[in-house]
C-alpha cells in the first residue's frame, strides 16, 4: 500500500513540472523573431484556408496568455497542428518516438548488460591491471564526441561494406517479408547502438565500481566475511544489492542523456528518430513541430525519471518522498 501511495505522489509531483516546462518552451519560442506561419505561407501547396485555420487555431490575433492556453488545450487533446509540409505533426511524431524508444532501449539494454559486470569485476579486483585498463578505457569512452565517433563508424561501415550507411530501413524494405524486415532493422540499429552504448557505458561502469567499492568497505560486508561466508556469496547476496540502488537513479539520468546525446548521432546516421526530427524542425523553423517535439522530449525525460524513482522505491523500501 505504502508503495502505491509513493507512486501516486510521485506522479502528482511530475505534473507541475510538465506545466512549467510547457510555459517555458512556449514563451521561448514565441519570443523568437520567427513568424510561426511564415514557412506555411511560402509553400504554394498549402491553401489559404489551411493557413487561416491554423491562424485561428493558434489564436495569433489574441494576447500571448490566451495563445498559450489555446495551444495547451489543443495539445492535450492530441491536436498538434500541421508541419510546414502539410502533414499532421502528431502522425509524424508518433513514428519518430517509437524509433527513438527502440534505439534508446537497445542502448540501455546493452550498456547495462556490459557495464554492470565489468564494474563489479573492476571493483573486486581494485587497483589490478584489469581495473586500471578499464579506468583508462572508460575515460576514453567518455571523451569521444558522439558525432565524431559516429562519423568514424560510418567510415568503418563504408570500408567493410557489411553495415548499412545510416537510416533505419533499406530501400527495398517494403517488399520484404516479416523476418527479413526484422533483420533489416536490426542491421541498421547496430552502428548507432554501438556509438551510443560506448558513450553511456563508461559512466554506468564507473558508478557501479565506485558504489561497490563503497559497500565493500562497509562494516556489514566485513562482518559477513568474518563470519566465514564465501566471498562470492558476500558479493552477490550482501554487497551487490546495496551497491545497485544508486545505479537505478542513474537510469533516469541516462534516459535523459540519451534523448539529448542521441540527437547528434541520429543526425549523422540519418536515423529517423526524435532528435533528428527536432533538428530538422529547428533548421526549417517549423514552429509547430519544434514545440511538439520539445514537449514530447521533455515528457519522455520526466517519464524516465519517474520510472527510475518508482523502480528505486520497489528495490529499496527506505526511500521516502
Amino acid at each position: 500500500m505504502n508503495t502505491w501511495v509513493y507512486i501516486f505522489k510521485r506522479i502528482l509531483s511530475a505534473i507541475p513540472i510538465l506545466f512549467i516546462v510547457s510555459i517555458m518552451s512556449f514563451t521561448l519560442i514565441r519570443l523568437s523573431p520567427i513568424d510561426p506561419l511564415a514557412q506555411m505561407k511560402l509553400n504554394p501547396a498549402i491553401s489559404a484556408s489551411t493557413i487561416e485555420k491554423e491562424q485561428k487555431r493558434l489564436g495569433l490575433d489574441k494576447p500571448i496568455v490566451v495563445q498559450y492556453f489555446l495551444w495547451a488545450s489543443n495539445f492535450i487533446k492530441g491536436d498538434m497542428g500541421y508541419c510546414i509540409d502539410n502533414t499532421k505533426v502528431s502522425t509524424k511524431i508518433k513514428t519518430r518516438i517509437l524509433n527513438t524508444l527502440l534505439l534508446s532501449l537497445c542502448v540501455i539494454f546493452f550498456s547495462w548488460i556490459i557495464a554492470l559486470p565489468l564494474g563489479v569485476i573492476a571493483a573486486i579486483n581494485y587497483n589490478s591491471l584489469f581495473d586500471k585498463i578499464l579506468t583508462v578505457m572508460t575515460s576514453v569512452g567518455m571523451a569521444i564526441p558522439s558525432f565524431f565517433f559516429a562519423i568514424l563508424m560510418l567510415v568503418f561501415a563504408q570500408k567493410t561494406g557489411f553495415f548499412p550507411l545510416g537510416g533505419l530501413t533499406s530501400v527495398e524494405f517494403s517488399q520484404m517479408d516479416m523476418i527479413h524486415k526484422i533483420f533489416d532493422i536490426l542491421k541498421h540499429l547496430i552502428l548507432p547502438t554501438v556509438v551510443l552504448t560506448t558513450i553511456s557505458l563508461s559512466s554506468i561502469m564507473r558508478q557501479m565500481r565506485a558504489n561497490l567499492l563503497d559497500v565493500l568497505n562497509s562494516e556489514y560486508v566485513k562482518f559477513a566475511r568474518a563470519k566465514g561466508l564465501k566471498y562470492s556469496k558476500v558479493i552477490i547476496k550482501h554487497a551487490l544489492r546495496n551497491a545497485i540502488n544508486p545505479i537505478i537513479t542513474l537510469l533516469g539520468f541516462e534516459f535523459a542523456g540519451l534523448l539529448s546525446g542521441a540527437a547528434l548521432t541520429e543526425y549523422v546516421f540519418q536515423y529517423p528518430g526524435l532528435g533528428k526530427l527536432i533538428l530538422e524542425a529547428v533548421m526549417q523553423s517549423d514552429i509547430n513541430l519544434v514545440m511538439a517535439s520539445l514537449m514530447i522530449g521533455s515528457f519522455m525525460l520526466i517519464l524516465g525519471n519517474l520510472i527510475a524513482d518508482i523502480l528505486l522505491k520497489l528495490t529499496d523500501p527506505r526511500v521516502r518522498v
Partner: protein
Amino acid sequence: MDREKSNFFKKLRQDKIPYIAFWVLVVMYLLILFADFFAIYPASQSNRKLTYQPPNNIYIIDENNRLVHPYTYNYIKTFDKDTLEIVYKQDRSKKYKINFFSKGYEYKLFGLFKTNIHLISKDENCSLHLLGSDINGCDVYSRLFFGGQISLTIGFLALLISFPIGAIYGGISGYLGGKTDKILMRLAEGIMSIPSFYLLIILASILPSNMTSIQRFALITAILAFIGWAGFSRVIRGMVLSIKNQEYIKAIETIGASKKRIILKHILPQTSSYIIIAITLSVPSYILAESGLSFLGLGIQLPDASWGNMLKEAQEFANILYRPWLLTPGFLIFIAVLSFNVLGDKIRDILDPKTIK
C-alpha cells in the same frame, strides 16, 4: 595556503596519467595563446584556387640521398576529363624551403606587440598546407590553433557565468527553505526537464543571423551557461541544506548577520572544493556542446574557426573518405576532453576526502 598548494601538486604528480593530462592541457592552452606564432596563414585567409588540397609532403632527404634543409613541392590542381575528378599532382619543378623562426604575415601578439616571426613560415609562392586545406582553401593546420582559441575558452567562459548563478541560486534556495525553496527548485527542475541538447539547438537557432562574430560568440556562451546552471544549483542546494544546520551557522545567526552575508560569506565558501571539482568535470561537456552545436552549423559561424565547425565538412561523406585530414579537429576535441576528464577525476580524488583511498 602555500603549503596546501604545494601539497596539491605533490599529490597530482604521484599519479603519472593525470600529471600527463595536466601538461597536455598546459601545452594546448599555450598553443592557442600563441596561435598566431604557430599559424602559417592568418585566420581567414583563403585561396579559392586550392580547395581541398592534400597535405604537403615534407622532405629532408633529397633525390641524391643527402640530408638537407626541409623542403616541399607545390601542388598543381588539374581536372581529369575522363573521370571528372579534380586531381592534385606534385609540381616537382621547384623546391620550396620551409623556414623556422622567420618572417611571415604580420600579427599582434596578445593584441599588443607587433611582430611577424612565426615558428614555421613559407616562401612567397609556396602553398604550404601541413594538414591540407578545406572547401574554401583555408589552411587546416593554422585554423586548428584559431579554432582552439574558441573551442577551449568558450567552456570556461560559460562556466564563469553559470557557476556563480548556480551557486547563489542554490544557496538562496537551500538557506531560505520553505516556499521560496519550492518555487526556485521547481523552476530549476523545469529547465532540467527539457532535454538539454534540444534546448541548446532551439536557443541557438533563434539567434538573429546578422550578428558580428563577437556578439555571436558571447551569446553562444550565454546559452551554454543558461543550460548548465540548473543542475549545478540543485547540488549546491543539497549541500547548503546540510551546512545550514551546523552550529557555527546558528552562532552567526544569533550575532545578527544578514542573510546575504551568511549565504555568501559563510555557507557558499564551504562548498568550494565541490565547486572546483564540478568545474573541471564540466568543462568537457561545455566543449562537447559547443562543438556539437557548431558541427550542426548553429554555433560559431564561418569565417570564424572552431573545432566544431571545422568538423562540419565531415558531414559530407566524400570528405571523410577522400580528405581524411579534415577530421583532425575531432582528435583534438577528443584529446582535450580526455585530459580534462582524467585531471578532473584526480582533482576530485585529492580534494574530496570521501573518495576511497
